[in-house]
């Protein structure tokens, strides 16, 4: 049944886009590291967070470390349309992103640990009056990594590490469906098959259904790292995490949204003598087995390869500076396929055309006193979405980010960190509507400007014994 092919083209397709967007990537997975802009693949913070930032770094730690932290993320953003300059703000939200790391050095050069972190997450939420609600008005993604890790001091100046990450991803996508973009039911030859509701006057942005997709999936990724101490002051580090394509099995639930539209008698060939309530015409489409009946969908969410290479230089015993370069390999992600269990629902394909992202991180740390350490950093990274794929699901762009942090040694065993980060995304032109299934959007449908910024505050506590 093809009549709702267009409708379904806009469903679910945002799902992989969530993961495929740099803006949903979270690098603030430890308070100490956040204070210095996440830089330090060559010298991670000594609290166990090396499990994510470079598994090889575990070999440097002595004894046992337990660190627990959380990052509060408060994004702000909106869309301003070209024609009227009218701004729609994203809903105010605050996310809490936890991290836990436990490590132990066995004293023979071998260290082990396990970490729990969330490298992909967050979400977007727009008012249901926003034109982009048909792409998605409330989106959530959580991707939890649990990574057992081993590290070994291979030589005086060389450390290697490897982790195997178990991944659990869950997603939620809510969106409205626009009646104007749907094909009319069969009209008995009065109108050509495939005629859209818009052709008979249904206004654009007419909500007639609400869909909610929830789904989850699991996978495994491998994470390796190395640190080479080139001199007593200069270290080189690198890490590589393999990509994982997670199969997401989801449930799709539809509910009808009343349009309230009624065609007057005699104004269409379909109702020569009686009023024709559009909602009654559409109601059967939500019945079991119909194209808009609840069901399941399957797609794939790819968490890409990512690698980081960096240098750390110890200017003097108190002052360290670092620089990292990072690449996340989104570039192969060009198309998306979604299949539905409901045989009435055709499979979907959508062009995405994402591109690799690059991050440039600079950070510094100053040991002010035996008790206090100050940190600062700056980072810039590019976006995965090309100009034709900047949407309400993730209106991302290149970002400048600024960080500050402080560490306090409370006792010989306890250490606390506080960090702040400001994210300032470059204003980016984007669209609020999706192209028809099987077609590629152009920048011609970018009708306004997305703005985005965020404040992040992190608190961490580490125990060493």
């Amino acid at each position, binding site marked *: 049944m093809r009549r709702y092919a267009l409708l379904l083209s806009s469903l679910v397709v945002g799902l992989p886009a969530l993961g495929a967007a740099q803006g949903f990537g979270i690098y603030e997975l430890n308070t100490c590291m956040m204070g210095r802009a996440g830089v330090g693949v060559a010298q991670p913070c000594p609290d166990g967070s090396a499990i994510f930032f470079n598994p090889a770094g575990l070999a440097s730690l002595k004894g046992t470390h337990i660190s627990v932290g959380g990052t509060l993320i408060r994004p702000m953003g909106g869309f301003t349309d070209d024609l009227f300059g009218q701004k729609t703000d994203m809903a105010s939200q605050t996310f809490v992103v936890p991290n836990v790391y436990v490590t132990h050095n066995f004293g023979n050069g071998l260290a082990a640990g396990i970490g729990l972190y969330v490298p992909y997450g967050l979400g977007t939420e727009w008012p249901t009056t926003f034109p982009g609600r048909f792409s998605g008005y409330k989106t959530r993604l959580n991707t939890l990594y649990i990574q057992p890790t081993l590290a070994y001091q291979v030589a005086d100046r060389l450390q290697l590490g490897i982790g195997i990450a178990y991944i659990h991803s869950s997603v939620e996508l809510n969106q409205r469906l626009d009646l104007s973009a749907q094909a009319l039911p069969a009209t008995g030859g009065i109108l050509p098959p495939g005629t859209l509701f818009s052709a008979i006057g249904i206004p654009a942005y007419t909500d007639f259904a609400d869909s909610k997709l929830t789904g989850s999936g699991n996978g495994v990724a491998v994470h390796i790292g190395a640190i080479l101490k080139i001199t007593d002051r200069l270290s080189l580090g690198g890490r590589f995490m393999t990509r994982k394509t997670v199969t997401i099995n989801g449930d799709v639930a539809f509910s009808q949204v009343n349009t309230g539209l009624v065609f007057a008698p005699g*104004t269409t060939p379909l109702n020569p003598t009686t009023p024709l309530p559009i909602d009654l015409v559409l109601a059967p489409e939500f019945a079991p087995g119909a194209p808009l009946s609840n069901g399941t969908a399957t797609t794939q969410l790819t968490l890409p390869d990512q690698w980081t290479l960096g240098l750390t230089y110890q200017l003097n015993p108190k002052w360290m500076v670092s620089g990292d370069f990072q690449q996340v390999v989104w570039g192969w992600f060009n198309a998306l396929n979604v299949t539905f269990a409901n045989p009435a629902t055709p499979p979907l394909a959508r062009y995405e055309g994402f591109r690799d992202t690059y991050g440039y991180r600079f950070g510094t740390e100053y040991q002010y006193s035996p008790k206090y350490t100050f940190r600062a950093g700056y980072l810039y990274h590019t976006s995965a979405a090309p100009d034709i794929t900047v949407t309400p699901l993730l209106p991302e762009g290149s970002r400048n980010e600024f960080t500050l942090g402080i560490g306090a040694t409370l006792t010989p065993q306890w250490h606390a960190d506080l960090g702040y980060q400001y994210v300032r995304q470059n204003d980016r032109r984007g669209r609020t509507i999706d192209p028809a299934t099987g077609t590629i959007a152009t920048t011609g449908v970018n009708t306004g400007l997305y703005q985005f910024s965020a404040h992040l505050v992190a608190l961490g506590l580490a125990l060493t014994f």
Partner: protein
Amino acid sequence: MSRTTTLLGAATLGLVLGAGCNDEQLFRPTSVIPVNALFTRYVAMGNSITAGFQSAGINDSTQRQAYPVLLAGQMQTPFFQPLMNKPGCPPPLVNVFTGAVVQPPVPPLNCALREPQPLPPPFLSDVAVPGAKVIDALSNFAPTGDANALTTLFLGGMTQIQAMERANPTFVTIWIGNNDVLGAATDTANAGNPALVTRVDSFTTRYTAMLNSVDSTPSKGHGVLIGVADVGLIPYLSYGQVYLFVKSTGALPANFAVSNDCAPSALGGVGDTVLVPFRYGFGLIAAAQANPSTTYTLDCLNDHNIEPAELANLHAAVKGYNAAIAALAAARGYAYADPNPALLALRADTAQVAPFPHANPADPKFTTAPFGTAFSKDGVHPSAASHKLIANLLIQAIDAQYGTTVPAVP
């Protein structure tokens, strides 16, 4: 760290930051930056004239010639129309005498439906519907209403009021009410039928209700209310004496007769107070041409014509409507524009308003402009030239009321 190193580091950081900040910009063409904030979101309500109906048809070409499009252009405000595919719905005439249309109509509905738009408009600015009376702005289900296929094709089940509210306008123009008398004037069974004329008190009540809805939007008190056109001024309707005169020139078939009651009142007839609809008059002439052996007579005292009492009733209705509209405009702060003086001035020039029948029918101008250059080929709806005239009339009214300086349509 040396001072040089510090400076070098700072310079590098500055370069990186500079390269990183690269905001893209809003793209708002200057053509849609309103000349006055009053015009931020403009909505036009009305009937066929406002919708862009010409030559008994409508398509995206005629729609783009409509006066609200011209007005929006001068106000420099975005304007979104429910554009119809070519050839139209129905296709406009190219020859009123043969019935030929611009392109073959699209079967089976004789309607090419709405034009797809790659960028769906956020709302409709032109919510006018051909055939709409005032009551149709309020409801698509009124027993005395005239909801039709274009009501659905343009508004998709909404009323004009609902479509207007969806746009949340800051400025409106309303030209509606013409069909409250035009339906009677063009009634084929009994032209001028008083039963088809909306009573002035009903008209006023409905118009007030419509205006109450408009006043609930930001456009409250910001707009132009346009008076109802006098149906006696449209060339679709010719005075009976015109037929008598043209008959006397020998331009009409020999077997087409014109009754003496079509003489002007000074000569004992009613020809200067009776309007003959084109459809009826031309129908008789065409029948005479087709059947040379049969005589066809135009009788001015015939139900097919608008007879003196009926014409007086139509004039009284229009006068009553316009008095009500003008009073409402004054009370609520709207500008008021009366189109009739301008239409009357056009009628004085037979090149612009050519009454039917023509004394020299072979003149090619009567094929291209059978009712004169001011009217389209149906004799009812203004031509593109007259839409300019109307737009400028409105601009004058707007500038006078609101102290704006909207440039005239060139």
